[in-house]
């Protein structure tokens, strides 16, 4: 049995190395909700499912299994904050639990990397799913001290829900897990055209062809701009990076004039639970630099659980 109320906190690459405020906010939220987060020492990139799986699927599984082994040694389920990390680790974990042949091959190669053996004792979780289902809109209400009152364009990204036969979270064609959860925080979800499409960054496309990636993203932004949300809300640092740097690119190269703040779900929840704006990290935003969370204080922090 793995430890209860405890997660091995898998950082990945983009969150700790580009958006540390998301890391800070996630720690704040999870610890306030009563979870222990354990450091995964010597972890590496998950490795990213778009690039590294494309080059060598077996090595991708071995490097991913190495990260899984670090959490197995901590005896805790993994918590990810990124769709890419979640996609890689959840998929490899599930596959190696089910496929004995590959498990043996992977374990053989793991020996080259150190004292690792995949045993299949843990699960891999995504913060959006822990908040959305385990805590739930019914459970977060007692913890929030601020109602945020704004309109958000919600971006699910691809690998949180798809492939549905592997993730087994909910339908990828009409998900509501994030909408239902943030409604309690006072956030209204505004629907927009082709809401569930990709941000254009994944699959190694952003590295392979910046033009193609920005064309896909440009259409996404056009659709978001039609409904004029206050913020763009995501659950993945790679989508986050695409929305932040992509708006800047479109403004400079395609004559656009976008300035939407991009907020990760962890940051939004942290603010609602009483974290100061400076730790939520809005001062580091590339876009929407003037944006601050408004909203009303509904109870004092001491009164919240």
């Amino acid at each position: 049995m793995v430890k209860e109320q405890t997660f091995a906190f898998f950082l990945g690459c983009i969150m700790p190395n580009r958006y540390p405020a998301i890391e800070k906010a996630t720690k704040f939220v999870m610890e306030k909700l009563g979870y222990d987060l354990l450091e995964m020492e010597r972890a590496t990139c998950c490795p990213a499912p778009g690039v590294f799986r494309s080059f060598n699927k077996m090595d991708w599984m071995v490097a991913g299994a190495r990260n899984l082994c670090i959490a197995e040694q901590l005896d805790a389920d993994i918590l990810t904050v990124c769709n890419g990390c979640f996609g890689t680790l959840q998929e490899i974990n599930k596959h190696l639990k089910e496929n004995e042949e590959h498990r043996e091959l992977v374990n053989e190669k793991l020996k080259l990397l150190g004292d690792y053996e995949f045993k299949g004792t843990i699960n891999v979780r995504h913060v959006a799913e822990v908040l959305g289902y385990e805590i739930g809109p019914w459970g977060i209400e007692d913890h929030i001290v601020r109602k945020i009152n704004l309109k958000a364009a919600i971006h699910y990204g691809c690998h949180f829900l798809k492939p549905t036969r592997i993730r087994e979270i909910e339908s990828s064609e009409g998900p509501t897990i994030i909408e239902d959860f943030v409604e309690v925080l006072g956030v209204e979800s505004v629907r927009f055209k082709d809401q569930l499409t990709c941000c254009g960054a994944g699959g190694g496309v952003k590295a392979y062809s910046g033009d193609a990636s920005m064309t896909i993203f440009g259409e996404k932004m056009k659709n978001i701009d039609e409904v004029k949300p206050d913020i763009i809300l995501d659950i993945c640092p790679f989508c986050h990076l695409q929305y932040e740097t992509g708006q800047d690119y479109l403004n400079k190269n395609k004559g656009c004039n976008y300035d939407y703040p991009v907020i990760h779900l962890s940051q939004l929840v942290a603010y609602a639970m009483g974290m100061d704006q400076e730790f939520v990290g809005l001062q580091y935003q590339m876009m929407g630099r003037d944006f601050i969370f408004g909203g009303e204080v509904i109870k004092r922090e001491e009164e919240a659980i």
Partner: protein
Amino acid sequence: MSETKEEAHREYKIDEDFDKEFFKNIERKSNIWQCIQCGTCTASCESGRWTALKTRIIIRKVCLGDLSVLKDPDIWLCTTCYNCYERCPRDVRPTDVIMELRNYATKLGNISPNHRAVVGYLKNFGHAVPINDEVRQRRVELGLEELPPTAFKFKQEGDDKDLKKFEEYMFDLPPVKEEKKKEEK
């Protein structure tokens, strides 16, 4: 489309580096022979709406054993959004097929310089996106450790055994093609 499967397989001999088992492997791993060329994949493709990627044609070429797909730059335009995988009425899993094609293309050296660079980052830093000075500063301002406790931090502290092993054993790429040609000449 008059070629039989066997005739198409004969074409493999054109490229002597090519492993004939490859297409058989794809057949084993996906349900590619169930494809009825309905085009649901192409219609669902978020990249193909804006780029040259035509998933249905890629699947057809694989069925015919057409080796040109391995040099086709379009296979690298898939964002792995899994729409085709979710919606295929014949359960073909085109995203997995494209992944297999990319794996083989990489083996043949058909890999872009940018992607080579990402592999270099992983081997050097343990991250596909390494940290920079600005973010180190921000981490300190936020009250986090200046470096996250990943393999790179241990390397900075003089313990580089993890990343040395990545360098040695993981994601070996074939040499850049241009250099190979020059040597041959």
